[in-house]
Each structure stands twice: as structure tokens, then as C-alpha cells.
């Protein structure tokens, strides 16, 4: 194994700064083992690999003791980055980790750029691009479902699925190569009809994966859920009820919430970006006008709209008009403030309030004050937005970025063209050009390097050779 060529050594705090009893400092690069030896002069002899050892960390010039820390070394290539890597678990707080990092810098390390450890891991082939993205998602994840999905992706769940689909395209290519390059072999060529059939199965698989994209992409950011409704219809109370803390100012004066307030909440384990906005009615008040513009802007991107309508009355013209304009976007009508109406009132209005008006997916009765209906809402939200994931659980391959679905869609379209042309009796050597493009699309997604896998497969699967 050739020695790692000159790369500089990077250092950074791996845990959140300031807080915590322990801080983990990471070193990666050609000099990291040397650096840790220098910082632990007090300890004589070599630090054992992959075995946590408590060592005195000293300032290199003065020999002044900085901390007693637990040091673990991970020589290349079996480390997170694929380079020599050292983890120093020092005491936490602000000062000690800073001193240790400073000491590392003094003997040749430089501060890592954001994401640089993961980038190096990709460069050294320790993970593919899809996995690297999952690292970010895992760190930034805001709900259990996001966490599950990121973890699955990090453990190559998605990469494996995509690699598997790529391998299937290569199998089809191998059939064609056998067809074209070895016309005189023992085994007769695979009939074109069978090749087309295999293509169709694969097309379905690609489609299936592509269908995970809308929910997968929402998992990362959270589904944008806009609370809409006339001023004083109970939006902010609902917002707070879902959030579990008094974030929005709740008053009885119409139009208190002048700008949008946003918070990400985990509902049933799934992330929702909740936005409380100004009311939907037109107004002369310029400050409030601004608030309504915000509403419109959010509405354009909303994944879900919660229209709050005070219970005990029919929907107004404005509200019906608003529902019409939402054009197929998921919407729940919430009949709010049920606590203000007596049981008799409720009975009277039963017909009006239980049937979903035109354009709405669901109607629910809630009282933020009494907490009634909130549990049902929390159950409804994931079912409406993350129905696939609710059904399958988080540990299935899902496309979590636009980049993913773009590539899979390109692959799918090329495959579809390939099948069409085979059926239109276009010569196989021409139709097969689409397969190459499909493979390249998936390879770009993974960031992997293509090799001569097609020929390898031909030689493995067919007895070739006169």
C-alpha cells in the first residue's frame, strides 16, 4: 500500500461548541498521527491504533499541560475520511477545546472548512455522494422520520438501490453486447422480446423510486404548512398548540400577526414547517397589506394549507373563493374555537361543519384552548402528506433531493425510449445508445466511476469463445 501523498492535515471541533462535558476534536490528514505524538510527549511510546487511551495533552513549545484527554487513532485507510485520523475527547466548555485546537495548529494542522471531513471521505472513496448528503441530513435532521431516512441513506440504502438499478441496466446492455459482439457463440442471442420485457420491469422499478421523491424531498426541509384564515380565526392559537409553546402572540384584536412566523415541528415523527401568516382578507392597512403579501408568497409554495374558520357559521364567500384558488393543493378546513359554542349550537351547525366544502380534503373541529381535536389533526397531517412513508416506514430508499429525482427521471426517460425503439424495429445497436445515457445518469447521481463492467458481465454470464 503506497503511503498517502502530501495532503495537509485538518483539525476541527466535532461537537457543538461551548456546551457539554466532553468535546471531540478531530484531526485528519497525513500528519495527524505525528501531531498527536508531538502533543503527547509526556506519554512514551506509540499510541495504539483504534484503542481509546487517556493521555496528557501538552502545549508543544512550553510542554504545559492542557488537559487529560481520551485519544483514539484511526490509521488510514480504515477511518471515517480514509486518511490517518485522530479523535481527541477533551473536557468540554469553551476554553479547553480551543487550546487543544490551537496546539494542533501550532504543529502543522489547519482549521477544516465546513464539511471538509466528509468531503475527504468522498474523495477517498469511503462514501459516495448520496451518502455524503445523508451525513448533512443526519446532522440537520429535525424529526424522527428525517433521521431514519438519513440514516438509511447513510448506510447505503439509497445508494444500494440506485446501484442495483444501474446494475440492471448494465445487464440489459450486456445482453445486447452479447448480441452484437458475439454473434457466433454457443448460446444463441437473447431474443429482443425478452430484452424489452426486462426493460419494462426496470422501468417500473425506476418509476417506483421516482414516486418516493415528493415525500423524500419534504423530509429534509419539512412540509410547508401554511395556516390561513380571516383575522382572529384562531391561526396563532393553533400554531402555538401544535408547537407546544407560546410563540405567536395570541390576542383578540384582528390582525395581530403582521408578518409570517415560521417554526419546524415534528408531527407524528414527520417534519412540518408551520407558517402562521396574516389573515386572507383585503385591507387598507398598509402594514397588514404587507402581511397578506407574505401569505400569498408562502401559499405559492405550500405543501399543505390549514384554513381556519371559526365554527358556528357557514363559510363566507371570501373563504370559498380562497379554497377555489388553491387548485388541488392539499387543504384541511379547521373549524376553530369549538369551545365558544354550546353543544346545542354544535348540533345546529352539524351539517355545515362536518362536510368538507368543495376543494378541501378534510374538515376537523378543534379547540386550541381546550385541546380538543388537536390529536386528531396530528394524526391527519402525516397521513395526508407522508402517506407513503407512513405506510412503508422510514427505512426504505427514498429520493431526498431534487438532484436525485432529476437523475432518476433522465435514466427513466432514456430507458423508455430504448424500449419504444426496440419495439419499432430500430436496429439494436442504435436503440442501445439510450441505455448508455441512462447508466451515465445514475452514475452521476452516485458520483461513481464507470469501468468495463458490461464486458465483465458478458464474460461471466455467457460462454464466449470459438
Amino acid at each position, binding site marked *: 500500500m*503506497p503511503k*498517502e*501523498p*502530501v*495532503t*495537509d492535515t485538518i483539525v476541527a471541533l466535532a461537537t457543538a461548541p461551548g456546551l457539554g462535558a466532553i468535546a471531540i476534536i478531530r484531526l485528519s490528514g497525513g500528519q495527524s498521527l505525528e501531531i498527536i505524538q508531538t502533543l503527547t510527549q509526556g506519554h512514551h511510546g506509540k499510541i495504539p491504533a483504534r484503542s481509546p487511551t487517556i493521555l496528557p495533552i501538552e502545549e508543544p513549545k512550553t510542554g504545559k499541560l492542557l488537559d487529560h484527554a481520551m485519544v483514539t487513532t484511526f490509521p488510514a485507510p480504515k477511518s471515517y475520511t*480514509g486518511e490517518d485520523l485522530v479523535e481527541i475527547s477533551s473536557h468540554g466548555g469553551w476554553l479547553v477545546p480551543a487550546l487543544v485546537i490551537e496546539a494542533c495548529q501550532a504543529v502543522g494542522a489547519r482549521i477544516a472548512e465546513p464539511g471538509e471531513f466528509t468531503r475527504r471521505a*468522498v*474523495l*477517498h*472513496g469511503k462514501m459516495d*455522494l448520496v451518502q455524503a448528503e445523508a451525513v448533512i441530513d443526519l446532522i440537520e435532521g429535525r424529526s424522527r422520520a428525517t433521521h431514519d431516512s438519513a440514516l438509511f441513506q447513510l448506510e447505503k440504502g439509497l445508494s444500494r438501490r440506485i446501484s442495483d438499478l444501474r446494475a440492471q441496466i448494465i445487464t440489459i446492455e450486456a445482453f445486447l*453486447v452479447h*448480441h*452484437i*459482439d*458475439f*454473434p*457466433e*457463440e*454457443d*448460446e444463441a442471442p437473447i431474443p429482443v422480446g425478452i430484452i424489452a420485457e426486462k426493460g419494462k420491469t426496470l422501468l417500473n422499478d425506476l418509476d417506483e423510486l421516482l414516486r418516493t421523491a415528493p415525500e423524500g424531498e419534504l423530509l429534509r426541509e419539512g412540509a410547508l404548512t401554511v395556516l390561513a384564515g380571516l383575522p382572529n380565526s384562531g391561526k396563532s392559537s393553533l400554531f402555538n398548540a401544535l408547537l407546544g409553546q407560546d410563540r405567536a402572540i395570541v390576542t383578540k384584536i384582528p390582525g395581530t400577526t403582521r408578518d409570517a412566523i415560521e417554526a419546524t415541528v415534528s408531527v407524528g415523527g414527520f417534519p412540518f414547517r408551520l407558517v402562521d401568516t396574516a389573515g386572507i382578507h383585503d385591507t387598507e392597512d398598509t402594514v397588514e397589506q404587507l402581511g397578506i403579501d407574505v401569505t400569498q408568497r408562502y401559499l405559492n409554495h405550500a405543501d399543505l394549507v390549514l384554513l381556519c374558520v371559526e365554527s358556528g357559521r357557514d363559510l363566507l364567500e371570501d373563504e370559498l373563493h380562497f379554497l377555489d384558488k388553491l387548485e388541488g393543493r392539499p387543504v384541511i378546513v379547521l373549524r376553530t374555537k369549538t369551545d365558544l359554542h354550546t353543544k346545542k349550537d354544535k348540533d345546529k351547525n352539524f351539517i355545515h361543519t362536518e362536510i368538507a366544502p368543495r376543494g378541501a380534503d378534510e374538515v376537523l373541529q378543534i379547540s386550541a384552548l381546550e385541546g380538543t381535536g388537536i390529536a386528531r389533526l396530528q394524526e391527519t397531517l402525516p397521513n395526508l402528506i407522508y402517506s407513503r412513508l407512513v405506510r412503508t416506514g422510514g427505512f426504505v430508499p427514498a429520493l431526498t433531493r431534487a438532484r436525485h429525482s432529476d437523475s432518476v427521471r433522465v435514466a427513466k426517460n432514456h430507458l423508455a425510449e430504448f424500449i419504444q425503439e426496440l419495439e*419499432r*424495429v*430500430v*436496429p*439494436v*445497436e*442504435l436503440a442501445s*445508445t439510450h441505455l*448508455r445515457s441512462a447508466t451515465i445518469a445514475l452514475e*452521476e447521481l452516485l*458520483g*461513481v*466511476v464507470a*469501468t*468495463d463492467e*458490461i*464486458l465483465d458481465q458478458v*464474460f461471466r454470464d455467457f*460462454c*464466449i*469463445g*470459438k
Partner: protein
Amino acid sequence: MVADSNYDVIVVGGGHAGSEAAAAAVRVGAKTLMITPDLLRIGQMSCNPAIGGIAKGVVAREVDALGGIMGRATDASRIQFRMLNRSKGPAVWSPRAQCDRELYPRSVQSVLKELMGLTVHQGMVSGLLMAGDIIVGVRTQQGIELFGKTVVVTAGTFLRGKIHIGGEAGVGAGRVGEPPSISLAKELENRGLEVSRFKTGTPPRIDGRTVDYSQIERQDGDPEDFRFSSYTKECVPEQRPCWITWTGKDLLRVVKGNINRSAVFGGEISGLGPRYCPSIEDKVVRFPDNPRHQVFLEPEGLETTELYVNGLSTSLPPEVQIELLQTIPGLERAEITKTGYAIEYDYFPPHQLSHTLEVRAIPNLYFAGQINGTTGYEEAAGQGLMAGANAGLKALGRKPLILERDQAYIGVLIDDLITKGVDEPYRLFTSRAEFRLTLRQDNTVRRLGPMACDVGLLTQSQEVEMNNLIDREKQIQRWFVGATIKPSVANPTLIKCGTSPIKETVRILDLLKRPEVSAEALAIAGHAPFDPNVNWNAIAAVEVELKYEGYVRRESERAAKLREQATFELDGSIPYKTFKNVSYEAREKLSKISPTSLAQASRIPGVSPADLQNLILEVRRWRRESIVTSSIE
């Protein structure tokens, strides 16, 4: 004794690579010497008596278009011709010919004799003459020193060659009955070149008079008067059939029972063999469930009854070879005329070469053929021609000749060799070419003729023939594009092809775009002013270039993109190992292979698209910084 000992180019070896190298060097104007151990064996077919096949047939046509010998020699010796892949589109048609083992080399030798400026010397090269790092000539076993401005080594399987039959220890040999070349191999290795070993095998030959033809299937050639050579119309000899039979269960039993006596499976041979040309032992071990394997009996020539048993390459002992042969239907009483064997030899991993096939570490030294880890007469000939031409051009102080991947299979071959290296004996397939719709057998003259002419590879009469041919093809294309056809004339053909009839006069081109209608059918129906039977190759070109114009255009767009990448030049001075934003594997590979352009770098296995992106940035940064540094100095 050689009268004059100073040459422009010295070619070591007289096989398919050596012959083409010598001829090409002479054609570009270099005073050339060929040294080979046995003058009578120049151009010999050491393995099967056939030229062409998938992709290889296109290479034979390319060699011809570039003024080489192979096409003419094949025409003059072919005793059976077939166009492979006839059932697919013309883009992957490949001509293949069975050749007379006596006539082929005789034809090669007669072409060489016509070349003024070529000296041929019988001898074995034992060492190199060097001036520092630069080669200046060679020394023969008899101690003769010969000087050349450039030297092309085409040593075939001779370098430390070792023949294996059965479980016996191997015997040193370059080919059967010829000694190996040991000192040359050692000297090249001592000069710091990386060396490795491959193996290949041959099947036994049998006496055709001992075959029961009533039990086996006859395979006749195609009736077309096809020519590999576009410039010279050689007389084609009378045609012979091949024969097909199948191995059965009894053969499996014999091979399995004796597997340990095979040189390959008994552990005698360490070199790697080609997966696409496996021995019968390989087939039985790797595909134990296949009950039968196809065997082709190929005539070795007109004057001999010998048959080449294609598909039965083996290194089992002679007595096992006869036993397994006689299990095969039709061969129950067959007698072996030559025993099959495996041969192991040195090759020099070709990443050590540049695109001209010059050895990077030893200026003026060129390698071609099996020494570069390839197999096949056609692959050898293609490299030989390019190495010989470039050795000649360099000796004369002229610009090199390099074929790109979108210009010729030869370009694909050489670029693959130096960029990807080899891990088994390399042969061409259409799947190695990303521009196979362009690299066809029907357009070799249009693709390569003018270029060959510019460099001086064509004779005057070849040049005239080339221009005639290109003009004729243009006329045919023009007819397909310009002519119209009436419903009454077209409809019978259209109906016969299973497509809807037309109601009014349309352009021929519009009908050509229908997948069901062939160009040939339209030429006949439309009473074209040319004979479709004579011009069927030009019509095949129309079939691809006009009917599937969209595909060809997409391919040329990709090629243009590649050309663009090729303009971002790289060179050996770039310190790849210091580029920390390029993956470790890519850094290692880039340093080892030293690509000449970004396009070549993109083809190196282990260099990812992300690496390329970062490589551009790193190289630009490095170039900026080195300019700053040098201006400060």
C-alpha cells in the same frame, strides 16, 4: 551481412505488426530495415487462419484505407468470406474471411518486395544500442550492430516465450519450432520498463480426411464479391466451406477427468489468458452446466487437408487431446496433425507508451502488437502501421500521426491501451467504441483515406482510386437525398416491406426514414442510376447515415464535446500528487498514465467526473502559480 548499417527506421519482427510497420515507414519516406529470425515466416498466421470478425474486420479495412497490407493479403488468400451481423444494422456489420495459410504470407511478402527503400535482414535481435536514454539501434545475436534513428519492436510472443503441452514443464519457444527471445526481454526490463506475462492457446489441427462430414453441419460463405481492400482488386481464390459440430457429455467427462494434467489448471502457467478465447478446460470449469460447446472446423488452405479446430484451444497432454477430440460427432476417427498448446510470454503494460506508441521512458523506441498486451492479427496490424508510420515520421522530423477515438477503431485500440492498460490480452469489440455508428466497415476510405494521403501513406494509384470511390459514394448519397418516387413505382415495394403505400410522389429520402424499408429496396424500386449489387457497401452507408441520421448526429455531437475536452491539454510536468482536491486513486492513476488531455484523463478508470472538475481547477491554479513563480525568478 547488411551492406549499410544506418537507417531511419529499424523494425524488429516480421509478423502482422512488423510487416505493417515496415511498409508504413517506407511509405512515409523512411529508409527502413526489417530484422526477423526467419524470412520465410514473414506475415505468417500463427494462430487461426482467418482475418476479420466483429470490430476486427473493420480494423482490417482501416489498415487497408491507410495504405496497409492486410486487406490485400486477405483478398488474395481468402477461401471463405462472411459478413457477420448481417441480421443487424449495417453499423455493426463486420467482414470475416477464412484464409489460406500458405497464400496469406506469400501475399504479404510480395507486397513488401514491391517496396523500394525496404531492406530485410534475417537475424535475431539480442540487445539495444543506446546513447544515454535514447535508443540508436540494435545488436543481433551474431554481434552485428545496426543503427536506426528510431526502432519499432514487434516481438509477438517471442519475449521469454514458453510453450506448454500437458502437465510438463514449459519449453522455451517464440512459436513452435522457434527459439524465444530472452536477452532482448531482459534488456528492456533492465532499462526500467514494467513487464508482465500473458498466456494464450491454440487448438489442435486435424487431418480433414479423417473427418466424417456426413455427421456435421456445413457452413458456406456469403456469395458477395466482397473485398477487404478498397484500392487494389486482387484475384480471389476458389471458396471453401467451414464445418460446425458440437461437443457433448463425453467431452465433459474426459476434460474433467484430466483437468489436473492441463498446463493452465495444473498450475504450470501463471500468466492471464483472454476470457473471450478460453480453452476448453476453461469452458468446462467455468460453465459446468453447459452440456455442449460449438466447434468450428476451418480449412487451413486449398492445398492442404488440415483443419483448424476452432473452439477447442487446450493445453492438455497430447493423448488427452486425441481422446477428447474423438468424443465429438464427426471426429470419432480424427487424427491430430498438430498438437494444441498454450504459450506464455512477456508483454510491457502499455500505459508506458504515448499515443504514437513510442515508449515514454526510452525516446525513439516504439512497440506494436502482442508486446503491448493485445491479441489478434488485426490489432497487431493496426498498431504496427501506426508505430511504423510514426517512427518514420519522427526519423524524418515530421509531425506525428494520431487517430482519435471517433476516427478509427485503431484510435480506440491505442487510446484504450495507453489509458486503461490491460488485464487480459486485449482485443477489440464494438462495445469498446463509443462512436461505433461512425466507425463502420463501409466508410473506412472516407474516414481515413484523405488523412493517409496527406501523410504519404498512399501510392499515387491508391490516391486516384480513393478519389474515385469517394466521388461515387457522394453521387449515391445525392441520389437518395434528391430523387423522388411515384406511388405506382414505390407502392409494390412498400407493401412488400409491410409499410403503408403512398398517395402522391414523395422524396426517396422520406421513404428511407421508415424503419421497414431498406435503402437497397428503394434503389431497386426507384431504378437508381447505379448498380445496387456492385455498390452495396455505399448503400449500407446510406442506410446508417441518412435513415438514422438523428443517431449519427447525436454521436457526432458527443464526439465534438470530447474534442472540446481534448483541447484542455495536460502534460507530464503536472504535480498530480499534490492536488488535494482530487481523489487519492485519481492522483495515483494520473501520475502513472500521464494523459495528454482532459478527454484522455476522463477515460482513466478511477478518475470520476468530480475528480475531473477539480482537476481543471487545480491545474489552472497550478499553472497560474507557476507563471507567477517563474516571473519572480
